[in-house]
């Protein structure tokens, strides 16, 4: 039973991280590196938690909808000025936004400052997370191959050329920023009702970088790549812990070391991410035949 419980929370975090990696992928799919998602997640988590704590009897579906909607609304005024920036500049401006959101929660007495909100009822079940993930994957999967999907790819490849061809680049970029914000907010709402608490310290800059890493390690060429990456990198430390215990390795530093080394190996030797592995094996097998 203990074993099942342990794996249950691991699975839950695979799902939640999968959603967050997808939220970074959403903007990445039109070539924009936005790192505001920790801020969006915080807004979603706090919105959901406050509704649950202060308005009894609101169905969980409505709470989650609010968690997704609140950051999506905030994304619009953020995107208007910020989406004019490109590359690293967009990334850093959005990091700035994320930090300001986090620090705002630190300084806001109503949400109990740096301590955060506690004793949130656990309303998130494993199937809620699975369903949210499936829904998100469905939406992102349907985008590919659609007219919008082609427009996004065109913007990713060359924004100026896409604009010349009559694609409304600003609108598409904004749509993906809002979609990413909604996904991150949904994940925030789910996590808040799974871990019983929300605190500003949870939504640090390091976390967004983690999701970006998960998305890229999984592979951003396929819409399900980020989920694969999230699953791999969420499970990896657990596997290393098991293996470390078996082999009698000291916990802590060595695992951290392996984590970094594996990440480096993937990014150096698998440029298209883990999802490109099957095709690579097939090619190698064909080459040998």
């Amino acid at each position, binding site marked *: 039973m203990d074993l099942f419980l342990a794996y249950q929370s691991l699975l839950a975090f695979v799902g939640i991280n999968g959603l967050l990696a997808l939220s970074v992928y959403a903007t990445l799919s039109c070539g924009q590196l936005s790192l505001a998602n920790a801020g969006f997640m915080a807004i979603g988590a706090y919105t959901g938690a406050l509704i649950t704590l202060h308005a009894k009897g609101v169905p969980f579906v409505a709470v989650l909808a609010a968690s997704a909607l609140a950051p999506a609304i905030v994304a619009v005024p953020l995107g208007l000025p910020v989406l004019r920036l*490109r590359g*690293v500049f967009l990334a850093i401006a959005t990091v*700035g936004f994320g*930090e300001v959101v986090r620090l705002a929660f630190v300084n806001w007495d109503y949400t109990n400052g740096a301590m955060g909100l506690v004793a949130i009822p656990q309303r998130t079940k494993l199937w809620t997370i699975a369903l949210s993930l499936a829904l998100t994957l469905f939406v992102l999967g349907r985008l590919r191959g659609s007219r919008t999907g082609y427009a996004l790819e065109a913007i990713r490849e060359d924004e100026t050329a896409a604009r010349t061809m009559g694609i409304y680049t600003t609108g598409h970029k904004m749509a993906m920023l809002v979609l990413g914000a909604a996904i991150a907010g949904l994940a925030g709402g789910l996590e808040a009702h799974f871990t019983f608490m929300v605190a500003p310290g949870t939504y640090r800059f390091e976390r967004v*970088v983690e999701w970006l890493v998960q998305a*890229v390690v999984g592979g951003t060429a396929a819409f399900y790549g980020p989920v694969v990456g999230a699953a791999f990198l969420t499970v990896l430390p657990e596997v290393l812990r098991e293996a470390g215990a078996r082999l009698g390795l000291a916990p802590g530093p060595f695992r*951290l070391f392996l984590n970094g*080394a594996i990440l480096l190996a993937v990014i150096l030797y698998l*440029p298209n991410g883990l999802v490109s592995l099957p095709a690579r094996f097939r090619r190698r097998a064909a080459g040998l035949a």
Partner: protein
Amino acid sequence: MGQQVLNGIFLGSIYALFAVGYTLVFGVLDILNLAHQAVFMLAAFVALALVADAHLSLWVALPLAVVAGGLIGIVLERLAFRPLRGRADSNISGLISSLAMATVFEAIALQIFGPDISRFPQDTFPDRVIQIGGATASLLQICIVAISVVLMAVLTLLLARTRLGRQIRAVAESPRAARILGVNVDRAIAMAFFLSSALGGAAGVLFGLAFNSISPDVGRGVELKGLAVIILGGMGSIPGAVIAGFALGVIEVFTVAQLGSSFRDVVSFAVLFLVLIARPRGLLGRAAAREA
């Protein structure tokens, strides 16, 4: 008032020193090196080990730690950046490979020095206080500002006047053109990493001395400050990073004094955010940099 300006300059000198190295690598490669903060941390530990365990004088340990920082930078470049060169997505993959190296460095520091806060021995630096006008400063603070300013001046001269500096600037302008003109591009980039990491390492040692606390995650807080500084100064601009470093130090000290310490970072990031929206190229950056 004068006291706070002085404290701000003191804090700012470390930010500036950190950011100068950060922006140097960005200027050359257009890649954010997220392992810069780990080099900062490792060099601080190297200095600590030399002073506390090998009983060297600080004035011997400091240069050695700076060189160690530079050498770590060369290793970093070799492992995490050179294999990616020529790849289309190198600015995102470089971000991730440098993050992987930061994790590895942090693991090494954890293994050797443990997770707790380490401190320099009591008698590392003479404890003396000096009056400047109405304000007081410790001898240590003055030395830190002086060392930072000297190192930044040396870097500026090196880039402006020497053959190596010209090569690095040529590679920053266009690696292909530099190669055609006979510059050894790989070597120039490796040297840029050496310089960048040596200065980052120096900043780490000075930070460790100033606050007398070093832990494997000490670099993380400085990393975001460094980002704010290089944006404010203009990406790739070294004088910009210097001015912005001092400006951020002063802003931070005044914020803490006026609004309280929980607002310390709010103002920094709000400034960062506004600069990006109103003037994305920063104080001294080139307009074209925005298209990067």
